């Protein structure tokens, strides 16, 4: 199958700083991919380059078989919803109307029902909308465009958990009806984890993981119990992190565990807990950061 998105050796340099460093990946059509990483990791630069808003300093970007840069044919088949999208001085109704002219697959009924569900008043000026409502408007346009390539960059500033859940539900429902290639960058990893089929983790401009979401979930396990038993179990394995309190220890073991490992852990009275997607990403970022107070993905 021809990939929906293909990036090869992409680098992007700003005043001597490498925002993207030799990034390569393909995204199969009809998949939902999460683009994960810390602030400043390069997620937005990558998405903007895919949307043709940025130029590559080196390497190539192909979307739906062609370069997106000033390519009307490609750009009409993709939608890019940015965090804090700027709008001209128009009303919600006009913003939606304008979007309907841009995207050939536009679904006006869907747009109408989504505006209602997210409680965005159609006659209000976009500039008078709250931050959350402006995010909701972006989501409405992103979904109703029904574009073959749909990209959301942190689309939910100011949205409460109920509205975010609505976004996930509507995204899944419409995706089921009309499968398309979705690329979603997010910090709310555990919240969105179930939606994702593939995961691309990016750190300081480089790709750290590009894998199935299920593969990443099982890729490391927290082993805890009596320190002696933990030491015995982890001997000869790659351990990322150890913590100890009194005679208890917990260690994060890299690599998938098999039935034999599980039986052995049970015999040693050890507790096993697979790392969640979010924990995996935090670990990944933490291992490449020296300053301990920065070890969070906000």
């Amino acid at each position: 199958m021809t990939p929906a998105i293909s990036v090869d050796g992409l680098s992007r340099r700003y005043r001597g700083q490498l925002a993207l460093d030799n990034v390569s990946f393909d995204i199969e059509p009809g998949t939902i991919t999460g683009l994960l990483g810390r602030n400043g990791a390069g997620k937005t630069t990558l998405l903007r380059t895919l949307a043709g808003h940025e130029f590559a300093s080196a390497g190539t970007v192909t979307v739906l078989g062609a370069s997106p840069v000033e390519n009307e044919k490609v750009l009409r088949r993709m939608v890019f919803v940015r965090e804090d999208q700027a709008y001209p001085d128009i009303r919600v109704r006009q913003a939606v109307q304008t979007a309907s002219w841009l995207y050939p697959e536009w679904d006006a009924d869907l747009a109408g029902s989504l505006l209602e569900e997210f409680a965005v008043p159609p006659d209000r000026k976009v500039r008078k909308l709250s931050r959350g409502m402006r995010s909701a408007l972006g989501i409405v346009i992103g979904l109703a465009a029904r574009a073959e390539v749909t990209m959301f960059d942190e689309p939910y500033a100011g949205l409460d958990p109920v509205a975010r859940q609505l976004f996930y539900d509507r995204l899944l429902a419409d995706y089921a009806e009309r499968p398309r290639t979705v690329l979603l960058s997010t910090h709310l990893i555990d919240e969105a984890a179930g939606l994702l089929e593939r995961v691309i983790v990016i750190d300081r401009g480089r790709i750290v993981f590009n894998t199935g979401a299920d593969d990443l979930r099982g890729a490391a396990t927290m082993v805890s119990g009596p320190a002696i038993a933990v030491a015995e179990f982890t001997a000869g394995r790659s351990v990322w992190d150890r913590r100890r309190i009194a005679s208890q220890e917990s260690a994060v073991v890299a690599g998938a565990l098999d039935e034999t490992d599980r039986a052995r852990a049970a015999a040693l009275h050890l507790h096993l807990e697979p790392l969640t997607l979010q924990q995996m990403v935090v670990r990944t970022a933490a291992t490449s950061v020296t300053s301990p107070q920065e070890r969070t993905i906000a």
Partner: protein
Amino acid sequence: MAGLDEGAPLFVQIAERLADEIADGALAEGERVPSTNELAAYYRINPATAAKGISMLTDDGLLEKRRGIGMFVAAGARSRLLAERRKRFAERYVEPLVAEAGRLGINADELIALIRESSYAQKGTGA
């Protein structure tokens, strides 16, 4: 994700949920199981993940596809599932139980007495 957070891969959890329902008889043999998209919407997961869960059960012969209609619980699925679970009962439940009892200094007779008590109590409450 509605109630799916136990760490095992999501598709495995989906397969286990469906298998539980078949074992309970909640999903009867010959009954249609929810479609991939229905499962995806309910559990808030990617449809491809739901499809992987379904195909695990299809590979095991517990579900069968009827062209154009959907997936159905195969004939004999429940009895095969129960037989399989009985086989694994000792390893999954009895062995850990005995191990923990040993750790607590509960001997075999005491353990048997505890099981009897618990079993009467559950019958008493209609459980």
